[in-house]
């Protein structure tokens, strides 16, 4: 790659989502979402359950193909890549799943080493060394390597998932609800680990969360997605885009309702929907 093309590539955003629509059967989940993520930024995507946050994350890594629109990662349109090229690009991602998604049949050590064994030709001793280093980085002792995921607590599983996602030194980390289901202390441990990962590895991060502590502590920028079913015909699905501090001063009632965790009219709406159905 020449110097000029390398410079141009560095200037382009790492993730570029343009007018993306995703529809499952008759249900529209994402409607005209446009979002760019510059290199080195930590973006939090917030929004209520079922609004399409995880689908957006999976669209960015190419696990879900957009019904229409364009998703580019470092200039590559993932939907157009063949299997070999897609594999090469996916090695540049690290994905931490909501429930860790560790392979039940493998031990912790084998789980963390999995990407290395798939893509690198490191010796067994080097793989072992790297696995121990990553586990130490997320605060897990060497003794866990021989355990099966079922033997670990929720927090430990999340940390193993993080160690596995980091083992290939990714350029983009995707976190899907990293603190959901954890106690406040373990949630803060995960927040600290995300911060440390960003600082040590200089990675770009996208965090899907509805934990406002995580958004405030870790993110440089926050976007909020609103469910398509609650939007008017011409309303945009991204209803907020700014810094975490700007959330409080935002004039949008829907954003304030979410960040303050107020039920508002929702309970009445739900009861009305039930009574309409019974009739």
């Amino acid at each position, binding site marked *: 790659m020449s110097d000029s093309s390398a410079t141009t590539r560095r200037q382009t955003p790492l993730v570029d989502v343009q007018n993306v629509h995703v529809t499952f059967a008759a249900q529209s989940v994402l409607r005209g979402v446009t979002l760019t993520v510059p290199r080195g930024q930590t973006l939090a995507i917030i929004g209520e359950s079922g609004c399409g946050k995880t689908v957006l994350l999976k669209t960015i890594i190419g696990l879900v193909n957009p019904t229409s629109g364009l998703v580019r990662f470092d200039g590559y349109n993932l939907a157009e890549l063949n299997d070999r090229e897609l*594999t090469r690009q996916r090695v540049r991602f690290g994905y931490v799943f*909501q429930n860790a998604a*560790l392979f039940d049949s493998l031990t912790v050590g084998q789980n963390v080493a999995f990407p290395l064994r798939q893509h690198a030709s490191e010796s067994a001793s080097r793989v072992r060394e790297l696995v121990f280093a990553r586990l130490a980085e997320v605060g897990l002792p060497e003794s866990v390597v021989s355990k099966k995921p079922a033997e670990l607590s929720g927090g430990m599983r999340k940390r193993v998932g993080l160690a596995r996602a980091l083992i290939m030194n990714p350029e983009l980390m995707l976190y899907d609800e990293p603190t959901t289901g954890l106690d406040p202390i373990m949630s803060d441990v995960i927040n600290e680990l995300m911060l440390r990962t960003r600082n040590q590895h200089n990675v770009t991060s996208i965090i899907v969360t509805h934990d406002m502590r995580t958004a405030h502590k870790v993110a440089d920028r926050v976007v909020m997605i609103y469910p398509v079913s609650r939007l008017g015909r011409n309303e945009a699905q991204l209803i907020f885009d700014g810094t975490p501090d700007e959330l409080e001063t935002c004039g949008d009632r829907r954003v304030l309702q979410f960040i303050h965790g107020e039920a508002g009219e929702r309970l009445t709406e739900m009861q009305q929907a039930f009574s309409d159905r019974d009739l």
Partner: protein
Amino acid sequence: MSTGTASPMERSPRRGIAASAHDLVTDWGMVVIDAIEAIGDLGLFCMRTLSWMVTRLPRRETLLPNFYQVGVMSLPVVALTGTFIGMVLAVQSYGQFRQLGLETRLGAVINMSLVRELGPVLAATMLAGRVGSAMAAELGTMRVTEQIDALSSMGANPIHYLVVPRFLACLFLIPTLTIMADFMGVVGGYFFTVEVLGIDKHHYWHNSEQFVGVFDLLSGIFKSFFFGAAIAMISCYRGFHCQPGAEGVGRAATAAFVYSFVLILMLDLFLGVMINAVYDTLWPEGVSLI
């Protein structure tokens, strides 16, 4: 109704029938379209599996556990059911053959039925029940818990990593299970006919030798390759397309067995017709049992 205005339903009963017929056609149309879509989707799934199989073979550490599960762990149950089916054949055939005075021909009937039909079908049925359902449930759980997405996100192709080893294990180990079912069925049939019913041992084996040839044995083994491939493909496909939740996983496991079993019997019919045609071409005179 006392007023002169009739309700729409009373006014036009024919329109109601037309609407029902329309609904019926629409519903059946949807069923047919869904079925065609599912067959097309399964076809693509098979093509992708075959394409990955010729592109890159799976690693030893992913192949061996599948070979162990399919081959070694299925042997006892296949051997046990094979033994019993041999004995059951002896029990059911003995009465009729005795009335005709052909008891010594039991060996030919039992062994021919076993190596041509019952051995391969029984081994395949046991494999579909023991391994096929387990494969669908395991892959279904992996789908539901995002483990298949995790594989993709790490740049590993799920078909190459999960389906190809299972397919190879079923394809290459079902012949050995078939041979085991044949062997144990022959032993079970011999034991019951000779040791329990008291038929002469020499005539039993002599008649078996006369009527059952290598072609019969090989035709059963040949069929088993198709059964193994069908079980692996259907079970993996059902697992990959599992619906969310425990109910979805349960349905995938049940559907894997039911569809595999139906396909085994359909394949058995078509392959049986084909093999008979080949046999008639090679030996037009045939061999008479009486």
